[in-house]
């Protein structure tokens, strides 16, 4: 067998087909032996390429699109808590409710400030919205502090993500205070607050609550 023919049929060898003429050629041809070892190295390296975690906002984007198309129904808080009533403790149930309320309150605040002629600074949000957000934020911080996640890696990941989101929220708020008309910062703030609400809700779903 000529090397050229071996190269064309090397795929059979790589598939584990025991073809006598291919084996015979490999016995006598160091160049084709190198070819096979290189193809095997390519296969092995490719097999070691890790799977990659998609960015966290991908699901948020998909869900938002599906909601806008009316393909998924957002569970009402009543249905949400009703289904989980017997499995969740009261703080978790209340926490989930507050997480939703928190997102809703922020949404109202942002939308209100976007309206025609509305004031754009954070400080100009309606007093009710500010009050609800402050209460919800205080509740979420308190509830978050009580939750324990058994897996230390997961717990660390939650801590890290919450710290990151908090930092991001502070940065957005600072930017908006300095540049009240910065719509991009406002949109980012809205996204960050939603993410925090989602994180806390997820933490409550996965975690345990310490009871003295």
């Amino acid at each position, binding site marked *: 067998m000529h090397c050229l023919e071996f*190269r064309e049929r*090397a*795929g059979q060898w*790589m*598939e584990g087909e025991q073809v006598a003429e291919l084996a015979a050629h490999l016995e006598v041809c160091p*160049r084709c032996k*190198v*070819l096979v070892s*290189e*193809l095997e*190295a*390519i*296969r092995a*390296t*490719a*097999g*070691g*390429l890790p*799977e*990659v*975690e*998609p*960015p966290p906002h*991908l*699901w948020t*984007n*998909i*869900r938002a*699109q*599906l909601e806008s*198309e009316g*393909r*998924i*129904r*957002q*569970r009402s808080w009543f249905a949400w808590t009703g289904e989980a009533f017997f*499995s*969740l*403790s009261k703080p*978790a149930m209340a926490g989930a409710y507050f997480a939703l309320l928190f997102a809703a309150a922020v949404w109202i605040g942002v939308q209100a400030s976007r309206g025609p002629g509305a004031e754009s600074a954070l400080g100009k949000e309606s007093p009710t919205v500010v009050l609800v957000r402050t209460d919800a934020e205080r509740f979420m911080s308190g509830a978050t502090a009580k939750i*324990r996640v*058994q897996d230390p890696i997961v717990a660390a990941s939650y801590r890290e993500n919450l710290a990151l989101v908090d930092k991001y929220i502070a940065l957005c708020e600072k930017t908006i205070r300095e540049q009240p008309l910065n719509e991009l910062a406002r949109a980012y703030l809205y996204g960050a607050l939603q993410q925090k609400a989602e994180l806390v809700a997820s933490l*409550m*779903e*996965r*975690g*345990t*609550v*310490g*009871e*003295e």
Partner: protein
Amino acid sequence: MARARRFETVELAEGEAIRRAQRGDSAAFERIYRLHSRRVYSLCLRMVGNPAEAEDLAQEAFLQLFRKIHTFRGESAFSTWLHRLVVNVVLMRLRKKAVPESSLEELTEPDEESGGPRRDVGEPDTVLTGSIDRVNLQRAVDQLPPGYKMVFVLHDVQGYEHNEIARLMGCSIGNSKSQLHKARMRLRELLQETERERARQERQAKSEAAGNAPADAK
């Protein structure tokens, strides 16, 4: 000591999640997404080599899935159904990008004039030294024609068997095997090209250092 009580988070089985998603349950959609998102996103990323575009493709694939989920009747495995959809979304995008209105042959058999790296007849193969660098391999994969790339990524990266690839891509098992072999051979050529370029740069750096030596000594 604080007593901990576990919240009962019910992880829906895939079948139940599909049934609930068909009724529009948001949590069921999310469960399906969480079950498959890593694999889907990784396939998109390996195929386009660009995180933003991979995200866009994964989003498109999941949106198509959720828009059609009410038509899923369970005759085939759900994962096969989903991955066939992802493969189609990715190939459609790559075909649009690569050659407008091109035939399948053009996408798998590149033009001899502009195809893979060409070498003079009789030039010895460059031996790939040591283990293959993952970054170089990904760069080489990025240069494969879409058809080769899809079979290579599905088989060698994601671990699908040829019969599964044939189902996903709507081709024969023999075609899948042949495409895979051609993909690996082209990757080898591309990696050898990288190796030759690295060696050339090394030689150039050495000769420059040698050329500069007397001037430095002055």
